[in-house]
């Protein structure tokens, strides 16, 4: 089906498959349509119908609070075209840069689900076709019988990846989270779309890296660290990782982070308990402090913001607090603060 999207600066035409979400169809065609979560939460992919009809796959999506249906507005990540369609996006839209990893729909098999902490699982997906992605990107996943997609950042990094690795925190109301926490899911086939997200790291950046992550937000940071390690990036640049969790019991990846600690300074911030004595005994390469993760970063980073690119990820309040600190206190420019808000 022929889709036309009129943006502030020009119009674009692309093909959509029957039932395919308009956002995914446009991204697949290399058109950098606006989005953030890609899963119906943020409202960033709002568009307005000019001609044609859409089928809304999830009329109760939280992101619908940002749209006015009576004005023909809809979320491109949730709606498919019923026939040829023209829509309008009130933003400047550009073609993706040559060489960027164009997102595609694909499928893969769940493998290697294991527990990282009492309410955190690691899981992997063996892809049916190898895919390229940038460090810090995410994909959206759909499980059999669970409606809708959920966004998860890759923890690993390689070109032509055959396997994607993720972490997942248990959420009492999360359909996908509940589904995965049930035993015996390995071997099930999942649908994916991606890679997505602009909080990416490329070694050509040539800046010192500051990573501020709360909880499962550490996932994308692990990919960034993996990418940097492959290029021996930290022989030329400095790096700091601040990882916030409630208590030591909620922490994970401390072994992996200890392995990076020769080249990167890693601080674990515990918001809900004093640092147990056992912490530094068990993880001597890591620093532990009590407090919120953005406060830990603020205290440790004074005077170190020259030539810094910051990444923030995690629960929205943690990301917002980190951004506020990075803009107002660290005085970083907005192009040096990267984050994706999708939870």
């Amino acid at each position: 089906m022929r889709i036309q999207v009129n943006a502030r600066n020009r119009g674009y035409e692309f093909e959509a498959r029957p039932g395919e979400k308009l956002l995914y169809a446009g991204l697949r065609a290399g058109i950098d349509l606006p989005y953030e979560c890609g899963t119906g939460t943020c409202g960033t992919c709002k568009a307005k119908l000019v001609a044609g009809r859409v089928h809304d796959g999830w009329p109760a999506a939280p992101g619908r609070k940002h749209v006015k249906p009576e004005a023909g507005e809809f979320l491109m990540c949730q709606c498919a075209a019923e026939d040829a369609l023209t829509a309008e996006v009130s933003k400047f839209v550009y073609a993706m840069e040559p060489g960027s990893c164009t997102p595609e729909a694909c499928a893969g098999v769940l493998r290697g689900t294991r527990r990282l902490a009492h309410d955190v699982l690691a899981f992997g997906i063996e892809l049916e076709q190898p895919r390229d992605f940038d460090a810090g990107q995410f994909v959206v996943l759909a499980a059999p019988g669970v409606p809708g997609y959920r966004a998860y950042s890759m923890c690993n990094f390689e070109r032509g990846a055959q396997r994607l690795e993720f972490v997942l925190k248990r959420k009492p109301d999360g359909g996908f989270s509940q589904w995965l926490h049930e035993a015996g899911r390995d071997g099930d086939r999942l649908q994916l779309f991606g890679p997505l997200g602009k909080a990416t790291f490329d070694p050509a950046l040539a800046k010192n890296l500051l990573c501020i992550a709360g909880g499962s937000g550490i996932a994308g940071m692990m990919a960034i660290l993996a990418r940097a390690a492959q290029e021996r990036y930290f022989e030329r640049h400095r790096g700091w990782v601040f990882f916030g969790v409630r208590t030591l019991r909620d922490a994970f990846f401390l072994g992996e982070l200890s392995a990076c600690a020769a080249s990167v300074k890693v601080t674990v911030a515990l918001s809900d308990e004093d640092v147990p004595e056992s912490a530094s005994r068990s993880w001597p390469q890591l620093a532990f402090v009590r407090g919120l993760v953005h406060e830990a970063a603020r205290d440790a980073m004074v005077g170190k913001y020259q030539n810094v690119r910051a990444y923030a990820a995690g629960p929205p309040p943690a990301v917002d607090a980190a951004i506020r600190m990075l803009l107002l206190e660290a005085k970083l420019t907005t192009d040096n603060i990267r984050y994706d808000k999708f939870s």
Partner: protein
Amino acid sequence: MCRVADVPENGLKECEAEGGLKLVVANAGGEFFGFQAVCPHQDVPLCEGLFDGATLTCHMHLWQWDVRSGAPLGLAEAPLQRYALAVEGGSLYLGGDATALDVGELFNGIAAGTIEALAALVRRESYEPGAVLYRPGDPADDIFVLDSGRVEFLIGRGEHTAPGGFMLNKGEVFGWAALLDGYPTRIASARCLEASTLLRVNGKAALGVLERDPSAGFVVMRRLAALIARYLASSGAR
């Protein structure tokens, strides 16, 4: 609207003027600036944003503006609508509306005398929905500043046309060819999608004003270059 003391130093506060108009008021070291209350991007309340006394930032996608002019900075794709404020007896009152020329992406913040000279060239015109402002091949004599409404562009002629974007924010400028040498005719058509009010300014006359104030002319030409690049360029570092 509100008490001066209610707006913290280098802070923000949302206020409501008589008639229900909502503004965000910024206190920049004791000077007060009023803007539209919500971000032009996604209707996020700007009073929840970040303000350091000079730059206003929407916390949602980090769009930023210069607090003195409302001009977009960094990632922002649109200016903020600015409102004049008056302080009387410890209270803030809404002053007059800034004109599209004042808030416009090309001219905001240049010397008052030069803005006045440009304003003297303005012909204010109202159009019905569907009105065509120009077609390909028409002489490109005038630039237009959008005051209200919405204008759409089509590139090409006859059956070979492609959408060329649209303008919807007060202060947006189009018909730039009138400011350029060597582009005497239009390459697109411009049509009002809604009832629209436009400020029409003769390009040669505007250049004459800017030649008498070269520092303003330099600013305008830098902004014009950035504007054209925004329409031509790929996403770059965005």
